[in-house]
């Protein structure tokens, strides 16, 4: 695996050609470039075999792989029943897959792939109203030591604040990935990708607001901002994914 994949890739060689391959878990991405074309063989997505796509490009431009967050929210379920006590606070950590974009320097990506494709899920109180999201394959954890930092994944700290005087049973946590930036943090165990932290506050039976912090938690270590959010972050987001649901 190319550990420095998030650094710009220069088209090298006398004929301006390049061939690189990256592996994240079971996913593999191959980029073959000449002066005029870029051929991308992406990971197998959604059970379908890897597709090869060819793009025409301006000669001489540098290619770069860019880290991106998921294009939809990630929904994670706590590993064990999690209850935030009345007027209490809890912190959980969610691991989510990284999307990799391929772009000419300074332009939006012309192709992007998830390093681990999560299952899709429905985010809404009923099947009639809501939105599609991704289901996290790993559970939300209260102890950071229970999450192993895998390649192609990033961590998000979610702080749950219960302002009510009754316990708050958490069954799902929505992490608004498109609103988060990615940071490369130099932690005690090496380099780990983190997103901005999210603080979720419950102030009423149906009122749940999320606030996106400026960066990752301080405990993650010195941070270098790698990628901007897909969607400009607003100070306050409405989340749909907390609470009890019943269907069918």
């Amino acid at each position, binding site marked *: 695996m190319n550990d420095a994949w998030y650094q710009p890739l220069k088209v090298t060689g006398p004929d301006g050609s390049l061939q690189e391959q990256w592996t994240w878990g079971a996913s593999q991405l191959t980029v073959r470039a000449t002066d005029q074309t870029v051929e991308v063989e992406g990971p197998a997505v959604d*059970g379908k075999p890897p597709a090869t796509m060819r793009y025409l490009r301006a000669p001489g431009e540098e290619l770069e792989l860019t880290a991106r967050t998921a294009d939809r929210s990630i929904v994670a379920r706590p590993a064990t029943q999690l209850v935030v006590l009345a007027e209490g606070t809890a912190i959980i950590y969610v691991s989510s897959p990284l999307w990799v974009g391929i772009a000419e320097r300074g332009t939006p990506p012309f192709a992007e792939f998830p390093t681990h494709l999560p299952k899709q899920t*429905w985010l809404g109180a009923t099947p009639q109203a809501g939105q599609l999201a991704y289901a996290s394959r790993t559970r939300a954890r209260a102890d950071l030591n229970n999450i192993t930092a895998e390649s192609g994944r990033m961590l998000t700290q979610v702080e749950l604040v219960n302002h009510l005087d009754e316990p708050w049973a958490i069954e799902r946590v929505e992490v608004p990935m498109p609103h988060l930036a990615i940071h490369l943090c130099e932690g005690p165990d090496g380099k780990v990708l983190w997103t901005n932290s999210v603080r979720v506050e419950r102030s009423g039976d149906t009122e749940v607001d999320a606030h996106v912090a400026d960066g990752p938690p301080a405990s993650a270590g010195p941070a270098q901002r790698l990628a901007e959010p897909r969607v400009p972050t607003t100070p306050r987001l409405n989340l749909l994914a907390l609470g009890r649901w019943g269907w069918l």
Partner: protein
Amino acid sequence: MAPAGADLLQASLQLALGLALAWGVSGLARRIATDRFTPAQAEVTARLFFWAFAALGVASGMAELGFDLSFLMGAAGLLTVALGFASQTSASNLISGLFLLFERPFSLRDVIQVNTTTGEVVSIDLLSVRLRTFDNRLVRVPNETLLKSDITNLSHFPIRRFDLVLRVPFAIDLDDLKRHILELADATPFVLDEPRPMLQFLAFTDSGVELQVSTWFPRETFVEQRTRFALTVHRSLGEANVPFALPSRVLHSMPSSIAPWGPSPDLGKDKIKRQE
């Protein structure tokens, strides 16, 4: 008596004023309705305003010219009755179309099912709705038929449930089968994680146990993915040596000496042949 030149001028002015007013009011109505209704509803609203004000302008101009409008109204009434009888079906379709337009059970590009026809809505007109079926035929459904029929809108909600009915032999361990199917649904990337996949008992039938596997898919890829999931289940059950129950019948063979109208005292001791 022929109208004087001044009357003619004034009648023309009133007619022109009426038409201009109709044009202006209908434009205003279209603008206001566009913000609140669909384009089709806005257009109908604008046209209603136009014809109402245009009729007022025409009536006003004719009154200025000395026409007896009460006579005209009487004639119009008779004409309306005659036209009403002649165009009963069209009028019914027209009124049904107005009801449908404001009830909005579907929109353009929705996929709907009306009676036995399923297709994409390609136009919504005052008299009919046109559907493009998936085998690329154009079906015109009169609005009256739509109003009287059950309409199923297949693309109204963003996700849809697929119910796969399985019939397995009685000898199968249903708990194991349930676990196997639900694990398979969880491991299949294109099945939505939530709402959760579900397996329900339907019935004990002649040939086995009937079960229903319910899984959810995004609307846009529903048709493709339900087939992929059914194939996945078929392949997985084959690999797990779970047979599908086939219609079966038990035949009892009897000696020819036994009368056909009475039960055989030896019934049950005879050879039983199972035929599939």
